[in-house]
């Protein structure tokens, strides 16, 4: 158990482990955080415009199906009593700043990684609930929201791959094997995940997509 970790690094996570290094993860956090932040700000600005002027037509209303106006005005857009974009702005800012800290700092306590893992796990569960609501309850796709979906999935996945590597050696053999597969084929798993979401979107609005071609 102790032979995989050098004594100097007890309590912190080694900076280079397998496919995902701390530096790469930090860069991903910054990138994903900034993209997500931009989308969340755009959504909040549109929401405010809409509150000021109920006749305002949001810039992201491309068609009845590609429309954020109809999505923004649903109860699901305020899932925790405050508008979702506010959660997005705070969350994605935190992710970007944490990414900067990873690049600038020199190792962190375990609880720091634990807390970020907790945060991105909440995010990924939340956006999958939103994907379900958008597809099957509201029946419309909001472009800015889809940007948030698109960044949250890799954000969660690569943070998890990074965290999983930390568990290596401390678990039964079969769990270790699963972790090896997950980290070795991280790109394949992410691709399948994203393709499933795309397939659901394609299937749900097939009439609309085929009318565009």
């Amino acid at each position, binding site marked *: 158990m102790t032979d995989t970790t050098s004594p100097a690094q007890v309590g912190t996570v080694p900076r280079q482990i397998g496919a995902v290094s701390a530096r790469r993860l930090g860069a991903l956090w910054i990138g994903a955080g900034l993209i997500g932040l931009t989308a969340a700000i755009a959504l909040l600005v549109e929401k405010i415009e*809409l509150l000021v002027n*109920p*006749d305002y037509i949001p810039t992201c209303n491309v068609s009845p*199906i590609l429309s954020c106006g109809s999505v923004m*005005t*649903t109860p699901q857009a305020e899932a925790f009593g405050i508008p979702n974009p506010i959660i997005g702005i705070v969350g994605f800012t935190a992710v970007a700043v944490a990414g900067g800290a990873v690049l600038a700092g020199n190792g962190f306590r375990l609880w720091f990684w634990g807390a970020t893992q907790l945060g991105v796990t909440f995010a990924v569960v939340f956006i999958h609930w939103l994907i379900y609501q958008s597809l099957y309850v509201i*029946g419309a796709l909001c472009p800015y929201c889809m940007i948030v979906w698109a960044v949250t999935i890799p954000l969660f996945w690569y943070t998890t791959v990074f965290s999983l590597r930390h568990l290596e050696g401390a678990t039964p053999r079969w769990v270790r094997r699963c972790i090896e597969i997950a980290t070795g*084929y991280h790109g394949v798993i992410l691709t399948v995940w994203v393709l499933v979401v795309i397939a659901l979107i394609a299937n749900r*609005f097939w009439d609309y997509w085929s009318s565009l*071609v």
Partner: protein
Amino acid sequence: MSKNLAWSLALIGVAVLLLAGMLVLTNRDDSSAEVAREAPTAQLVREDSPRLSEGKDAVFVEFLDFECEGCLALYPVIEDLRDEYGDRVEFVVRHMPLHDNSVNAALAAEAAANQGEFEAMYQRLFDSVDQWGHQSTSQAETFAGYAEELGLDTERFRADVNDPATLARVEQSRQDGQAFGVAGTPTLFLDGQRLELTTVAALEASIEAAVND
């Protein structure tokens, strides 16, 4: 190339081919079925466009949005004209949703049309626009309430409102409108000619002339 990358790229390739293939197939089915009827280009009136009357002497088309002030102002005029010319003029409604809830309203009207009650829902929507118009939240529930009051099968109504095919019909209408240069509502066409009118008397004179043509 690593196995991880190779598998990811292969999956993406397969997904793209599959999606493109399915889109092409769907469209080929569509066109082969539609060639007999009509080319899939823009049409001012479609077979499934809702009608308020079935006269044979002239075709009157209104592109409307249930939430627009101009359409509301025109509504009683159209009601009067229908009283007078309904037996001779075909009054067709096309959707051009431009407001927050106008897509929901159009869906409600289409769903009512599926049960043969387009006219009742059309009147109900205009008569009670004070209750649901210019709201930033979805009024889909209000419309379901109207359906119930009109004695419609509410289960079926809800299913039809959520059916992507209903939305595709509204979208088709909007696209037809755009193809015919409709940028605002209400926009009127009489026997395929766009009407640029300022007074009720002029509108009535145009219809009278078209009927006696």
